[in-house]
């Protein structure tokens, strides 16, 4: 293992150890698992043909609501929390570069959230498999992958908020505002803005690209059931104008960009900062 990889791996292990002791993450894992299990059982009771497809549809809303919340909370306190404790300077006084520290934190948090979300998917999947003939499992797994992607994106955004904040409470507040805007407020605001300033398709496209959560929602609906009513105005426009394959490519690229750009910005800003 190269020296940098060994340092990053040490930091990843430290994050995983912290995560295993985190009440936040344990609470999330438990809540998510119970809700996912509830969805799978409810689906079974209401629809004999439901199985994975029905549960996946239910999980979309749950994931889009909870995963960004958890990631923004964990990500936004990752760096600034160390800074407040004074441990950031202790770690960076070692042969550790700022980039290695950021990567170690990011990868560690990503694995921890994947584990928590994976637990929910796993338990719900097991329940469905026991109660139903196995159909729609591909969509279920695809949505699991999309949730993994959403985790990476929202943690990257959270980490950027953490780097630019000088206090943990400020970072958490920024994280909560970001969650509120992206998850709860955005749909209405984006449509209103797009319709107020421009009714062109370009405005709708920009409105989608500006919100990775919306992108993941449209991707999930496309994979599950490309129904224009469920896709919403932005999704419907994309599918109608560009077709499913192009829409899928654009949205996956959007997810990648929303992951890489905040990470690069966090790294460049972090490098310029004082650590003590």
């Amino acid at each position, binding site marked *: 293992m190269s020296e940098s990889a060994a340092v990053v791996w040490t930091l990843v292990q430290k994050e995983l*150890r912290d995560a295993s002791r985190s009440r936040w993450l344990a609470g999330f894992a438990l809540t998510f698992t119970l809700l996912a299990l509830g969805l799978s059982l409810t689906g079974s009771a209401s629809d004999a043909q439901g199985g994975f497809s029905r549960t996946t549809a239910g999980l979309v809303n749950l994931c889009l609501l909870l995963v960004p919340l958890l990631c923004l909370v964990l990500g936004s306190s990752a760096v600034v929390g160390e800074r407040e404790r004074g441990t950031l300077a202790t770690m960076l*006084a070692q042969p550790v570069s700022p980039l290695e520290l950021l990567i170690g934190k990011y990868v560690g948090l990503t694995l921890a959230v994947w584990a928590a979300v994976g637990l929910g998917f796993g338990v719900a999947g097991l329940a469905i498999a026991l109660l139903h003939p196995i159909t729609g499992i591909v969509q279920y797994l695809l949505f699991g992958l999309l949730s993994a992607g959403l985790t990476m994106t929202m943690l990257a955004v959270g980490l950027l908020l953490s780097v630019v904040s000088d206090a943990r409470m400020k970072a958490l507040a920024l994280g909560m505002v970001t969650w509120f805007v992206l998850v709860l407020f955005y749909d209405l605001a984006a449509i209103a803005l797009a319709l107020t300033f421009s009714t062109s398709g370009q405005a709708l496209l920009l409105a989608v690209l500006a919100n990775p959560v919306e992108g993941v929602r449209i991707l999930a609906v496309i994979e599950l059931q490309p129904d224009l009513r469920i896709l919403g105005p932005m999704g419907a426009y994309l599918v109608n104008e560009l077709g499913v394959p192009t829409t899928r490519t654009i949205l996956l690229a959007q997810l990648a960009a929303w992951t890489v750009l905040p990470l690069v910005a966090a790294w460049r800003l972090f490098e310029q900062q004082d650590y003590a």
Partner: protein
Amino acid sequence: MVMPLVARSVGKRYRTGAALDDVTFELASGEVLALVGPNGAGKSTLIKCVLGLIQHSGTVEIGGVAVERHGKAARKLVGYLPQNPAFHPDLTVRETALFYADLRRVPHERARAGVEAIGLGEHAEKEVAALSGGMRQRLALALALMAEPPLLVLDEPGAGLDISARLELRRLVQDERERGTAVLLSTHWLEDVPYIADRVLTLREGRVTSLGPASEADLIAHATSRLFLRLNGRSADAVALLERHFPESPVARSGDWLVVTCAASRKARVVEAVVEAGISIADIRVEEGTPDATQPEAAAATS
């Protein structure tokens, strides 16, 4: 031969003004350089610049490696003891030692031995949060020494240590010097400086006011201490004794305590005199580096 540490025109500006301005010095192998100066003089800021923990102007080279461009490679050559060591509170002493050993790529065996050597072996499974300030300081020292670096940077290493631990620290610095390690230490224990350091760099308002052999530094003579003595009775006798033997050192009362303001180098003599007179001392407390109003230069150098 490559110098373990070379600082050239190092400066640091905050919005409020310059914290360091044009600081230049070199440190050779087996040499101990003491940084002294009043609070806010820039000692800790200079140390943070040396480690690359803060952005600064000028250049710092550790073992010929530029900290500004190759911080990670440079820090591999440094062991650092911070003024207030901060560790992850929920990790145990053992976990902390192994975490930093992994970051430095030091074998776990050596990390464990380091923890034992500083007397924390029996506390290895204790969480860092449960350690006293002195124990945390010792843990930080063990971590600083773990990789046997050619340069040791100690920021106020005496802070939080009792007298015996301070003497131990003196010995440790001597041992490191004999091993050829270069040591940069900031301290306000000025009476230690002639015993511990080869040269003294005095900072004031971020500027170097003197840099020279420790033996020639006159700030030691001006350093004052406030010695707090709680006696088991016979306070009046003690006051009379001290006024007779140490007329230059004012004695005051503060509750149960007698407060003697004396030259830092004389405080052991004061205690000795009280004990020799058969007066029993229940407790002692020392405040070092009290500014001496009659010695503005010394006051500046000792606070």
